[in-house]
């Protein structure tokens, strides 16, 4: 079950979706038991930006039919804070031995997810990650609005290719582009990422979504529930959409694909793999079951 990914060896194909598992907080909550039974073969960080962000005002969560709408707003310590404070705490995690066929525990590889609104910003982020031996791969979150158009950078193949090109020059580490699902032509975007030099693509990110405060629709003064106004839908509700996009993208690029979106059980991970994914990421399901990664990886044995 051990798998090759962009020249890296992973204990099994199950990793986490960015922003859905905080290894440092989880270690504090669950103790050292976590460090030697980490539920993922690689750990993807929350999205890191150049400057620190506090994130959106609450409420940040809305429970939807078979899913979750979040409007977290990418809180993070910023590049410097991440490297100085978080990175040292992100070493020493080992995957749960019960999730590998040999019963061995492997070091958990670190993938750092970064976002910037210009090629230059992304370039600086990637360069800094490149210099850190502890970081195995870099994931680019391109679901970031272009300041001029308001549309996601990642939704426009031309823009996406040029951004990836800029970034590609700054690192020799595996470069994953996390595509936005809110695009007309997701496979076209994947091809653009590949053309720009990406080593892999990951998808799907959350679907743009919204909720109104309960009862507020009735009063005629609709109030948006989420502090951030709108948010992103994740969880089982989006699984059929994720599967379609993963399948379409896998058919169009030669680089490996990381599939995610509503994966809860081994059967869902198998579907993602069958649709062409090399790795499968688990997001919202980890909220319900923090050991979901291990449970799913076990089911693939």
């Amino acid at each position, binding site marked *: 079950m051990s798998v090759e990914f962009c020249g890296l060896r992973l204990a099994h194909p199950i990793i986490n979706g960015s*922003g*859905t*598992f*905080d290894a*440092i*907080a*989880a270690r*504090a*909550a*669950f*103790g*050292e*038991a*976590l460090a030697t*039974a980490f539920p993922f073969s690689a750990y993807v960080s*929350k999205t890191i930006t150049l400057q620190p962000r*506090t*994130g959106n*005002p*609450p*409420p*940040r*969560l809305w*429970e*939807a*039919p*078979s*899913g*979750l709408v*979040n409007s*977290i707003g990418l*809180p993070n310590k910023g590049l410097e804070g991440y490297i100085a404070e978080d990175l040292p705490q992100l070493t020493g995690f080992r995957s749960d031995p019960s999730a590998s066929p040999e019963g061995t525990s492997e070091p958990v590889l670190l993938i750092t997810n970064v976002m910037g609104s210009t090629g230059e910003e992304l370039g600086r982020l990637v360069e800094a990650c490149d210099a850190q031996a502890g970081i195995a791969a870099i994931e680019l979150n391109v679901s970031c609005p272009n300041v001029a158009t308001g549309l996601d950078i990642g939704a426009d193949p031309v823009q996406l290719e040029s951004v990836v090109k800029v970034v590609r020059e700054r690192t020799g580490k595996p470069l994953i582009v996390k595509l936005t699902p809110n695009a007309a032509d997701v496979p076209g975007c994947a091809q653009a990422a590949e053309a720009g030099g990406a080593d892999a693509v990951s998808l799907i990110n959350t679907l743009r979504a919204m909720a109104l405060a309960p009862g507020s629709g009735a009063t005629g003064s609709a109030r948006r529930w989420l502090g951030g106004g709108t948010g992103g839908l994740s*969880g*089982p509700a989006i699984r059929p959409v994720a599967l379609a996009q993963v399948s379409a993208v896998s058919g169009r690029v030669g680089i490996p694909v990381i599939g995610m979106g509503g994966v809860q059980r081994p059967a869902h991970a198998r579907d993602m793999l069958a649709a062409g994914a090399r790795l499968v990421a688990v997001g*919202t399901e*980890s*909220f*319900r*079951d*923090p*050991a979901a990664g*291990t449970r799913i990886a076990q089911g693939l044995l």
Partner: protein
Amino acid sequence: MSAKPPGAGFGRRRGLVTGNDELGAYRVLRVADDGPAPAPGQFAMLASVERWGAGEDERPHLARAFSIARHRDGEAHYLLEDVGPGTRRLCELGAGEEVWVLGPLGKGFTAPDQGLRAILIGGGVGIAPLAILQDTLIASGTEHTVLLGFRDAPRLPGAELLRDARIASDDGSAGHHGLVTDLLLEELDSDPSATIYACGPAGMLEGVRAIAERAEVPAQLALEAGMACGFGACYGCVVPRRGGGYLRVCVDGPVIDAAELDHVEAHAGAPA
């Protein structure tokens, strides 16, 4: 009693429901629990193993947070109020059914400074963590006063969860006719050397916070917030921190020093 809990062990576990008793408008759910002993103020994420979902709008999907109201003889007690699809499902569980339990989680209450009296003030279903707190205070022989507020008569039986409580009720059906914070003011007037332990609706907590600030009395507030995970993963459960930024209620709390907050937001309290 310690602020820093022992590691809860990794992952959720199945717990057998051993009982579910009516307590006025509330229910006390009892779950066999061989997990680590919680610190007072800690909580657990609960979800029924069977049929979690299929309520209004196909919810609940995520687990729900509940204060551990009591933990003894291998059983955890939770005080539940039916306010939506998640609590509704848990309220109807019977002995022999199972729940997923993740916990104990979060930072609990810290003991009052040597010699200081503890004032426990709770509103509605928010009295739950004060019950286990009182158990510890009794065990350690710590002087304490209990003030409980309820909306109406059907909720009054909740007071049975604690001992020797002074009661306030919004509708005057028992005790002081008015806010439980009125009782707090009285208590502080008569003897201000105390530490306040509070849990309840946001309005009450904000009242307590403001009173404690004015009286320069330390206060520990057990907050609530919509939670997706309960263990710091989702960054969804935040409240604004004094001086900027946010605190995650699940890992920085749920018990938060009142001095860390400018105010208690409407979303940060228990069902009223």
